[in-house]
C-alpha cells in the first residue's frame, strides 16, 4: 500500500443554495473547493425573477413608480428616484426644490436603516446575535421616522414622477430632529461595539480582500468599492437632488483606520461611518429645506397625460445604500415606456464574489458573501423561467459530494 499513492482529488464541489440560511434570498452557488479552501466560485442567480422590466413595459409611469418600489424592499426609494429622474429628464420638467430635498432626506433615512439592517445581518452571520438585536433595535427609530414621513415602513411610495407625494410638515420636524439626535448619540457606541470587538476583528480582518485594482477593474460600486479605496459616490461626483448643495465627502476606511485594506472589516467601517454621514446630510437638508410645492403636477390625470406625450431616452441614477443604481428609460409617446433597463447596485457587486471568496475558508463564506450586502431581488428581476430548472444537483449527488468532501477533510 505504501508504494501506491492514493488518488487524491485536487478539488471538489459544494453547492450552496438556493435556499440556505446564509442567504436572505435564493441564489445558487457552486464552490470548487480544495480542502477547506475555496478555489473558485460560480453562482447562478435568477431564483427570484419576476420579470419586472417586462411588466413595466406594459404599465404607465405612475404605476411603475410603485413597481419600482417593489424591485426591492430594502432600497425602496432607490429605484423610484432613478426611474422618476429618468422620466423627468425625458419630459424635461423641473422638480420643485423642496421635493429634491425631501427625496434626499428620505434616501438618507433609507441608507441609515439599510446599513443598520446590514450590520444586523452581518452580526447574525457571525453568530453574534446580541449585536443583531442591537442593530435591529436601533433601526426601529429610523423605521418610525420613515413611517412618519411616508406612511409605510417599507416600500415607501413617496416618490412620484415630478416630485414627491408627501410633504414633510412643520409638526414632523421635532420628531425627525429627535431621531437624528438619537443616532448621533449612538454613533460612538456603534463604532465601539462593531469595530473594537475582538471576535469581530478576528473574523473579519484580512478576509475577503478586494484590492483597489480589482475594485476598479470589476467596476464594483458603493461601500464595496469605497472599502477598497475607490473614491466613488454618485452623490458627490454627480450632483442631483439636493446632494449638490451639501458639503459632504466620500467615506473611505482610511478616514478612521488610516489605511485601506479592502477586507470585510473595512466594509463594516465604511458602512458604520456612512450612517454618521447620513445623519449629517439629513441635518443639512432639514436646516436648508426651501419651501414651496412638492410636485410638478398634483393632478395625476394631467401627469399621466404629460408622460404619455414624452419622447426620448434618459438615464436616472442614484447612490443607493449598496451603491450606484441606474435606470435607462426610453419613451416613445405611449403610455408605457418603450424600453426600461434597471441596473441595481448588487448587479455590479456580485461579480466581485469570485474574487473575494477565492482562497477563503468554508466558514467564512457566509460573512464574505454578506459583506457586499447582496440582495438579489433587484438583480434577478429580468430573467424568465418557465420550465423546472435543473441546475440543482440531485440530492444523491449532493450527498456524494459531501462524502468526498469528508474524505478530503480527513486527509488535510
Amino acid at each position: 500500500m505504501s508504494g501506491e499513492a492514493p488518488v487524491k482529488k485536487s478539488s471538489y464541489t459544494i453547492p450552496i443554495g438556493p435556499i440556505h440560511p446564509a442567504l436572505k434570498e435564493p441564489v445558487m452557488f457552486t464552490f470548487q473547493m480544495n480542502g477547506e479552501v475555496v478555489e473558485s466560485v460560480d453562482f447562478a442567480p435568477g431564483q427570484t425573477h419576476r420579470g419586472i422590466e417586462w411588466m413595466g413595459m406594459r404599465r404607465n409611469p405612475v404605476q411603475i413608480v410603485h413597481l419600482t418600489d417593489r424591485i426591492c424592499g430594502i432600497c425602496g426609494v432607490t429605484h423610484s428616484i432613478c426611474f422618476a429622474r429618468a422620466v423627468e429628464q425625458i419630459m424635461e420638467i423641473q422638480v420643485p426644490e423642496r421635493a429634491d430635498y425631501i427625496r434626499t432626506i428620505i434616501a438618507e433615512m433609507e441608507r441609515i436603516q439599510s446599513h443598520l439592517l446590514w450590520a444586523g445581518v452581518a452580526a447574525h452571520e457571525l453568530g453574534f446575535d446580541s449585536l443583531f438585536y442591537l442593530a435591529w433595535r436601533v433601526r426601529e427609530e429610523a423605521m418610525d421616522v420613515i413611517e412618519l414621513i411616508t406612511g409605510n415602513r417599507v416600500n415607501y411610495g413617496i416618490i412620484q414622477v415630478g416630485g414627491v407625494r408627501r410633504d414633510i410638515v412643520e409638526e414632523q420636524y421635532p420628531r425627525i430632529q429627535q431621531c437624528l439626535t438619537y443616532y448621533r448619540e449612538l454613533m460612538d457606541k456603534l463604532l465601539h461595539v462593531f469595530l473594537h470587538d475582538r471576535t469581530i476583528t478576528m473574523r473579519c480582518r484580512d478576509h475577503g480582500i478586494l484590492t483597489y485594482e480589482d475594485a476598479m477593474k470589476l467596476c464594483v460600486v458603493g461601500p464595496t468599492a469605497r472599502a477598497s479605496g475607490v473614491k466613488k459616490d454618485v452623490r458627490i461626483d454627480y450632483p442631483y437632488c439636493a446632494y449638490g448643495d451639501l458639503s459632504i465627502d466620500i467615506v473611505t476606511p482610511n478616514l478612521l483606520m488610516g489605511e485601506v485594506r479592502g477586507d470585510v472589516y473595512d466594509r463594516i467601517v465604511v458602512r458604520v461611518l456612512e450612517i454618521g454621514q447620513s445623519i449629517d446630510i439629513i441635518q443639512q437638508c432639514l436646516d436648508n429645506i426651501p419651501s414651496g410645492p412638492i410636485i410638478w403636477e398634483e393632478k395625476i390625470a394631467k401627469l399621466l397625460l404629460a408622460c404619455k406625450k414624452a419622447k426620448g431616452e434618459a438615464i436616472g441614477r442614484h447612490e443607493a445604500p449598496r451603491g450606484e443604481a441606474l435606470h435607462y428609460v426610453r419613451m416613445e409617446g405611449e403610455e408605457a415606456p418603450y424600453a426600461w433597463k434597471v441596473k441595481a447596485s448588487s448587479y455590479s457587486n456580485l461579480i466581485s464574489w469570485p474574487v473575494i471568496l477565492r482562497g477563503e475558508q468554508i466558514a467564512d463564506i457566509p460573512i464574505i458573501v454578506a459583506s457586499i450586502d447582496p440582495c438579489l431581488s433587484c438583480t434577478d428581476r429580468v430573467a424568465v423561467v418557465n420550465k423546472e430548472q435543473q441546475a440543482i444537483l440531485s440530492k444523491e449527488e449532493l450527498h456524494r459530494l459531501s462524502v468526498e468532501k469528508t474524505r478530503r477533510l480527513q486527509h488535510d
Partner: protein
Amino acid sequence: MIGMTPLTPQEVVDRFRNTFGEGVEGTLIRERAEGMKKRPNYNLWITLRQELLKPAIQTLIDISFPHLAVISGVDIEDQIELVYTFSLYFGVKHGEYLVNLKIRVPKSDPRVPTISDLMPSAVFTEREKQEMLGIEVVGIPDPRRLFLPDDFPPGVYPWRKDEKGIPPSMIKNLWEAKRPKDRPAPPVPEKPEAPVCSVECHDPSEAPNETETEVKKE
C-alpha cells in the same frame, strides 16, 4: 487612473469627434441641474458606427479609466440598439460625467465584439444581453446564460418586441387566482351623471380592467 487633468464635457465629445470623425454619428450633451444651488451634472450621448465601439472605449480608457455601469439594449424595428453606459471620473468633486456610447446592430446579423478584454466587468452584462436580446457577443470568455435556465426555449428573447419576444402562452395572470367572479355589485344611490372630464387624458373605457386583459389572453 484617477486624477487626470479634468476635461470638460465638450472636450470629451470633441475628443471623440476628432478621433473618429465621420464615425461619430451624433453627439448630445445633456446638462441637468437639481437642488437649490443648481449644480449641473452632465450626460453625454455619443452614437457611433458599430465597428468603432472598441476604439471608442479605448479612447475613454485613455482619458481616464471609466466605470462601466451597464449595457442596455432596445429593440428598434429591424435593429438592436445597445447603450454602453460609462461614468468618467477625474477625481474632482461633482466632476463625473455619464458617457453613453450607442451603437446599432442589425437583427439580421446581431453580432458585437466583446469588450471584456478592455473592461473585465462587462462579462456579466454581456451575458445578459445575449440571452435577453438574442445578440451574439463575439469572443465573450464565458458564453453561458446568466439568468435564464439552460432549458429555456431557444429563440425566445424576452426583450424583443417582435415575434421572438415572450409569447402570450407564457404569461400567467396571478390576480385571477380563485377570485370570486359572481359576486353581485352592491346597490348605488341614484346620482347625477359624472361630470365630463376637462383634461381628457384618458378614456374611462380604456381603464385597465378585465376587458383589457381578456383581450390579451385569448
